[in-house]
């Protein structure tokens, strides 16, 4: 085990894969000479050289599509998208080209590419640089979508993504880059497998990315016995682990840093409700952001994503009442 920051775990995972497989190449905006705007590629150019490590123009469609083409020809490109929003201008290459190439080649081609992107609110970047946007990809067959919650998962998920034969998107909560944690570099996560952050008997909480940390703090503050499932993979998500946990506890809360409408948690609540209806002790529900852009003002942004205080309130509700609670903005009369 080695102590390192999340951003260092990402560098380490990339370097370990580049050492293990010369087909791994890495490019993105300011990732080579400048070593990444978030310092997620420190030392990579120096060790692996300018053929395999490249700065690109500000041209996401061009270089993301180039990763698709290079992957089909046998390389394993890793591209960095500085802010997930920038993938909007490259969406065709991800959703309509990359995710379809195996299908449209009758299974003769694979696209072993990895897209890393920083996501999430909390740092005052405003509404065009603070979204998570995982729902853009979560309903695109052919993609795999991962999100780490700490240094260990940042390391282990990125290695798994690079090793995977299909297009994988790794969404990195930007707010975690500077966080420290212990990393065991022998662990490569299995894509599609959730991780149990804690185990308990009264309630199951499913979360993703930084919301795992928020939920963990809330569980401690509420003093409850809870299974905390760190989903890690959004597609394909780990139904087995989630269903087994809710079967045991009879209660489910999903904590998402994503708008209430159309979030991945809806899928989980729907499947759990349909399959475990008779063993539920209370209504499964989601804690999400409101359906609004991410506000810039610090006070407002602090209330945008689920807070541990609010998760505590909603856990207590779930343990004492059968119906779902109102989201905070309704409970506090701020909005409908």
């Amino acid at each position, binding site marked *: 085990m080695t102590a390192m920051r999340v951003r260092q775990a990402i560098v380490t995972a990339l370097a370990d894969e580049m050492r293990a497989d010369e087909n791994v190449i890495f490019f993105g905006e300011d990732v080579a000479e400048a070593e990444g705007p978030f310092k997620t590629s420190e030392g990579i150019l120096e060790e692996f050289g300018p053929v395999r490590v490249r700065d690109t123009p500000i041209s996401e469609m061009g270089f993301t599509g180039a990763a698709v083409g290079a992957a089909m020809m046998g*390389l394993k490109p890793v591209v960095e998208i500085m802010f997930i929003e920038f993938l909007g201008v490259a969406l065709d*290459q991800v959703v309509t080209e990359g995710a379809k190439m195996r299908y449209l080649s009758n299974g003769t081609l694979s696209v072993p590419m990895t897209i890393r992107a920083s996501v999430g609110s909390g740092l005052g970047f405003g509404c065009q640089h603070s979204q998570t946007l995982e729902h853009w990809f979560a309903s695109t067959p052919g993609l795999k979508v991962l999100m780490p919650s700490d240094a260990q998962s940042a390391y282990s998920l990125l290695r798994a993504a690079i090793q995977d034969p*299909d297009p994988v998107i790794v969404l990195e909560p930007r707010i975690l880059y500077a966080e420290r944690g212990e990393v065991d570099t022998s662990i490569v996560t299995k894509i599609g497998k959730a991780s149990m952050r804690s185990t308990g008997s009264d309630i199951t909480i499913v979360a993703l990315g930084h919301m795992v940390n928020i939920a963990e703090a809330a569980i401690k503050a509420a003093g409850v016995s809870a299974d905390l499932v760190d989903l890690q993979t959004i597609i394909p998500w780990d139904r087995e682990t989630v269903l087994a946990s809710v079967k045991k506890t009879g209660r489910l809360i999903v904590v998402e840093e994503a708008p209430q409408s159309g979030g991945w948690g809806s899928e989980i609540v729907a499947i759990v409700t349909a399959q475990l209806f008779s063993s539920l002790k209370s209504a499964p529900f989601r804690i999400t952001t409101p359906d609004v852009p991410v506000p810039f003002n610090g006070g407002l942004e602090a209330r945008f994503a689920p807070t541990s205080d609010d998760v505590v309130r909603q856990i207590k509700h779930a343990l004492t009442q059968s119906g779902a609670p109102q989201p905070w903005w309704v409970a506090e009369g701020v909005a409908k």
Partner: protein
Amino acid sequence: MTTSLERRNALYGNDLACYERMVEIREFEKITNALFAAGSIRGTTHLAVGQEALALGMATTLQPTDVIAGTYRSHALALAFGLTPHSVLGEIMGKATGCCGGVGGSMHMCDTSVGVLPTSAIIGGGMPIAAGAALAFQVQKSKNIGVALFGDGATNIGAFHESLNLAAIWKLPVVFICDNNVYGEYSRINTTTPIEDLHKRAESFAMPHMAIDGMDIHAVRKGVGEAVDRARSGGGPTLVEAKTYRFSGHSRADQALYRPEGELEKWQKRDPLLVTEQDLIARKLITQDQIDQMKSTMEADLGALAKKVESDPEPELSAMFSNIWTPAKAGK
């Protein structure tokens, strides 16, 4: 059964075989049109009548190990590069015998044994991919090259500019071939684009460029050949603009009633089949009688094939669930 690679290899150094393949494409498109009209083909089709010389010129200049990312106007490309009429028509008709097992359709041809990457139904969609394939060849120190084939309309989309820019700064072994057939969907080029000599757009990427006569296979081979040689020898990308003309409408829904009077007739005098026939007759490689015989034989053969394909098996339901992700053991 003849493989795609055998059909491709049969073309090299054989102008008569190239002409016969052009006749195959022309007759194939006639049958596709008829099958669509008869309701035997679902969805849509985009015919490449009049663009045969470009397809054959590329097929005989590139090697089967080079890769090309083409467009939804895919039938001529597929047949010229080697795919069998059976696998192309099978795909157009959604049969299990199609090159994509029937799940792709008319716009999606693919055969990696002859370097045909999945053709894209998105304007410009294949361009960054071709550049990326070229990036792989550069990193792997391979002599193969990538080619992007796209229409005039694609030169107005971001993918065109991003791909040319990336290829230029990284000096990628890629050739960009613009099939300027004068129309982007239903719109004539002058209504959508401030210039008609599209190859000049390469100037802003400091990239070599040229216009070629896309109706003449020899002119195509010469121009594309120069670009291919440059790419293969490490000289970087080229933008080649092939001047062609779309003899049919954009897709089956389009009767092309918007053409200026006399434009089609003017271009039909430069019909690539006609141009090639004149060349072959002058070189005494074929007679008019033999041409007529070849066309009627091809029409009959493809007609018989169409009947056969109509009764080919449909894909199994399981085909819908296949090839989404790579099976775990197929490699990393």
